[in-house]
C-alpha cells in the first residue's frame, strides 16, 4: 500500500512553494503601490480640474458684471488704449469735467487684461478666444480650436494635460454661450442667443502638482517597502518552522511506509509458514497411516488430512492475496472442490461438479470455519450421496446479500440424508462440527432440506469479525 504525497520527491515542491509565496507577496505590494499612486494621480487631476473650473466661473462672474454695466469706463493709459474694435460705438471715449480721458472697456477687453495680469503674477494662463475672433490676436491655438469645435458638437467642457513650450499645463476650456445681454453688442457679428461665441481656456502649471505627487510616491515606496520587507522576513522565519515541520511529517510518512511494507512481508511469511507447518502435520499423518492395514483407520487418517488441507488452503490463498486481510471465497471454493473431487477419483459412477459462485471477500476468521464446513459437506456428498454406480451432480452456491450476509449452499441429487437423522444430535462428528462451526463460531444459521437429495444452506455475517485482525 502506498502512502500518498510522501512517495514522491517533495523537497523541490517545498522550495518552489516558498518562492511562489514570496513572488506573490512582492507582486501584491508592487500592485498596491501602483494602485495607490494611481489614485493620488487621479486626485491631483481632479484638484486641478476643480481649480481651473472655478477660475473659469470666476471669470464668467466678472464678465457678467461688466456686461451688466454695459461695459466699464477706465482711464486711458498706454497699456489701456481705446479699443479699436469699438470704433463705431457711440461715446466710446469720454472726458471727465476735470479733463481726464476715459474709454469704454468691453467684457472681453477686461477679461484679456485680467488674464495677462494673472499670467505675469501667478503663472496662470487664461485665454479668451473664438473660432471667429473679433480681435485676430485672440485666435485659438490647436488644442483650443479642437475644444471649440467640440463645443459646437455639444461638448460642455474639455480638459487635459498639455505641453506649452517646455512646461506641462493642466488646461481646461469651457464655451461662452450668447446670452440676451450679449446680443446688444454682438448681434452685429451674427450671434443669436444660445450660440457659442467662443470659449475661455484656463491653463494651470502642472509642476506643483507633480512635485507633490513625487513626494507622495517617495513616501509610498518607503512605507510599502517596509511592509514588504516585514512580510518577507515573517515568511522566512515562518517558513523555516513550516519546512521543519513538513520535513518531520515527510520522514514519519516514509518511515511508516517502510514499516507497512515490512509488516506486509511479515504477514505473508507467516501465512506461508503456517501453511507449511500444516503440510508437515499432514506429512506425519500420512507417514503414520502407511503402516496401517485397517481400511477404516486409514479412512480416518484421510479425513483428518483432508480437513487440515482445507485449512492450509485458506493460508495459501491469504499468502497469495493482494489484500492480506481478505480472501475471495469463490477462488477458494473452486480450488477446494477440485481437490476433493480429485482425491475421490476412480469411482464407477460420475459426479458432475456445478459451481454457482459470486465473488465474496471475507476475513481469515470467517474463511477457516467456512473451509472446514465446505470440506465436510462436499466430501460427504461425494462419498455418500452416490453409492454404487449412481451418477449425479453436486452443486455449490456462494452469494452475498445486499446487507453483507454471506450464503453458502451445498446440494446434491443423490440418495439424501438418512431418515430421522437430526444433525444436531447423533449424526457424525463431521455434521456436528458443521453445526457448531456455523452456529457458534460463525454466529450464523444452518438449514437442511431433504427431498430429492441433500441440501445444506449456511447463512452468516462476517461483520462482527472486523474488531480483531485475524
Amino acid at each position, binding site marked *: 500500500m502506498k502512502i500518498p504525497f510522501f512517495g514522491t520527491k517533495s523537497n523541490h515542491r517545498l522550495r518552489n512553494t516558498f518562492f511562489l509565496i514570496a513572488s506573490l507577496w512582492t507582486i501584491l505590494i508592487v500592485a498596491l503601490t501602483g494602485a495607490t499612486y494611481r489614485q493620488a494621480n487621479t486626485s491631483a487631476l481632479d484638484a486641478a480640474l476643480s481649480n481651473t473650473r472655478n477660475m473659469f466661473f470666476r471669470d464668467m462672474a466678472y464678465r457678467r458684471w461688466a456686461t451688466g454695466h454695459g461695459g466699464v469706463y477706465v482711464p486711458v493709459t498706454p497699456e489701456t488704449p481705446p479699443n479699436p474694435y469699438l470704433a463705431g460705438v457711440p461715446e466710446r471715449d469720454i472726458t471727465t469735467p476735470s479733463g481726464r480721458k476715459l474709454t469704454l472697456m468691453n467684457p472681453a477687453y477686461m477679461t484679456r487684461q485680467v488674464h495677462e495680469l494673472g499670467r505675469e503674477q501667478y503663472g496662470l494662463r487664461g485665454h479668451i478666444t473664438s473660432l471667429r475672433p473679433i480681435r485676430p490676436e485672440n485666435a485659438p491655438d490647436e488644442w483650443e480650436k479642437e475644444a471649440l469645435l467640440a463645443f459646437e458638437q455639444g461638448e460642455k467642457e474639455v480638459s487635459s494635460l498639455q505641453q506649452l513650450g517646455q512646461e506641462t499645463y493642466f488646461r481646461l476650456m469651457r464655451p461662452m454661450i450668447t446670452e440676451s445681454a450679449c446680443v446688444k453688442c454682438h448681434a452685429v457679428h451674427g450671434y443669436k442667443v444660445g450660440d457659442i461665441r467662443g470659449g475661455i481656456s484656463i491653463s494651470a502649471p502642472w509642476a506643483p502638482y507633480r512635485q507633490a505627487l513625487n513626494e507622495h510616491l517617495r513616501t509610498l515606496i518607503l512605507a510599502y517597502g517596509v511592509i514588504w520587507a516585514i512580510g518577507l522576513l515573517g515568511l522566512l522565519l515562518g517558513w523555516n518552522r513550516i519546512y521543519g515541520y513538513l520535513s518531520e511529517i515527510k520522514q514519519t510518512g516514509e518511515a511508516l511506509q517502510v514499516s507497512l511494507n515490512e509488516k506486509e512481508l511479515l504477514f505473508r511469511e507467516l501465512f506461508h509458514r503456517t501453511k507449511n507447518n500444516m503440510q508437515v502435520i499432514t506429512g506425519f499423518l500420512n507417514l503414520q497411516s502407511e503402516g496401517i492395514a485397517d481400511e477404516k483407520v486409514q479412512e480416518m487418517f484421510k479425513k483428518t488430512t483432508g480437513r487440515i488441507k482445507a485449512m492450509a488452503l485458506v493460508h495459501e490463498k491469504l499468502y497469495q492475496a493482494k489484500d492480506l486481510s481478505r480472501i475471495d471465497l469463490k477462488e477458494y471454493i473452486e480450488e477446494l472442490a477440485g481437490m476433493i473431487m480429485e482425491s475421490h477419483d476412480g469411482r464407477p459412477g460420475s459426479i458432475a461438479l456445478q459451481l454457482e459462485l459470486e465473488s465474496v471477500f471475507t476475513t481469515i476468521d470467517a474463511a477457516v*470455519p467456512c473451509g*472446514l464446513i465446505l470440506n465436510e459437506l462436499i466430501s460427504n456428498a461425494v462419498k455418500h450421496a452416490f453409492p454404487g454406480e449412481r451418477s449425479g451432480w453436486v452443486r455449490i452456491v456462494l452469494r452475498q446479500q445486499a446487507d453483507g450476509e454471506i450464503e453458502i449452499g451445498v446440494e446434491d441429487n443423490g440418495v439424501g440424508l438418512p431418515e430421522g437423522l437430526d444433525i444436531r444430535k447423533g449424526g457424525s*462428528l463431521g455434521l*456436528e*462440527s458443521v453445526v*457448531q*462451526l456455523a452456529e*457458534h*463460531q460463525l*454466529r450464523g444459521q444452518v438449514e437442511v432440506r431433504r427431498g430429492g437429495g441433500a441440501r445444506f444452506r449456511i447463512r452468516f455475517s462476517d461483520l*462482527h469479525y472486523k474488531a480483531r485482525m485475524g
Partner: protein
Amino acid sequence: MEKVKILIVEDEAISAISFKGALKRYGYKVCKLASTGEDAIEIVREEKPDLILMDILLAGEIDGFDATREIRSLADIPIIFMTGYMDDEIKMKVSAIEGSALLLKPIEPADLQLAISEALQGRKKTLSHDGAGSGEKASEGKSRDTDCRR
C-alpha cells in the same frame, strides 16, 4: 452423587467439540456450549454448572475476564481459564481471581482432568471449612507449562 456439570466457553468450534468429547469420556456432564461471554452468562443463569472452562479470548464484546466478573456476581463457581499464549498480564489477572486456574493451549486431556479434579476438591475443602478464615483457597490447577500464582 450427581454428575458434575461443566460449562465450556470457547469460540473455536472444533476445540469446543474436542473438550466436550474429552469431558464426557471422563464422566462429566456438559452444558450447552457457549462461544461468547454473553452466552456464557446466560447459560450460567439457566443451567447452573458446577465448573466453567473459560477461554480468555472470545468473540463478542467481552472477554473471559469480563464474563467471569459477571458470573461471580451470580454464583461462586470455580473457573479454569484457557489461553493460547502466556504473559505476565494474564497471569496477574488470573491470580487476582479467587477459585481460578490457568491452562495453556494445546491442552492435554490428562492435564484437563487433573485441573478439574483439583478445582472441585478445593471447593469441597472450602465448603467444609466454612467460616474458618482463608484456610485453603480454591486450589490452583497446574499444567506442565504454567505456574500462575508466582
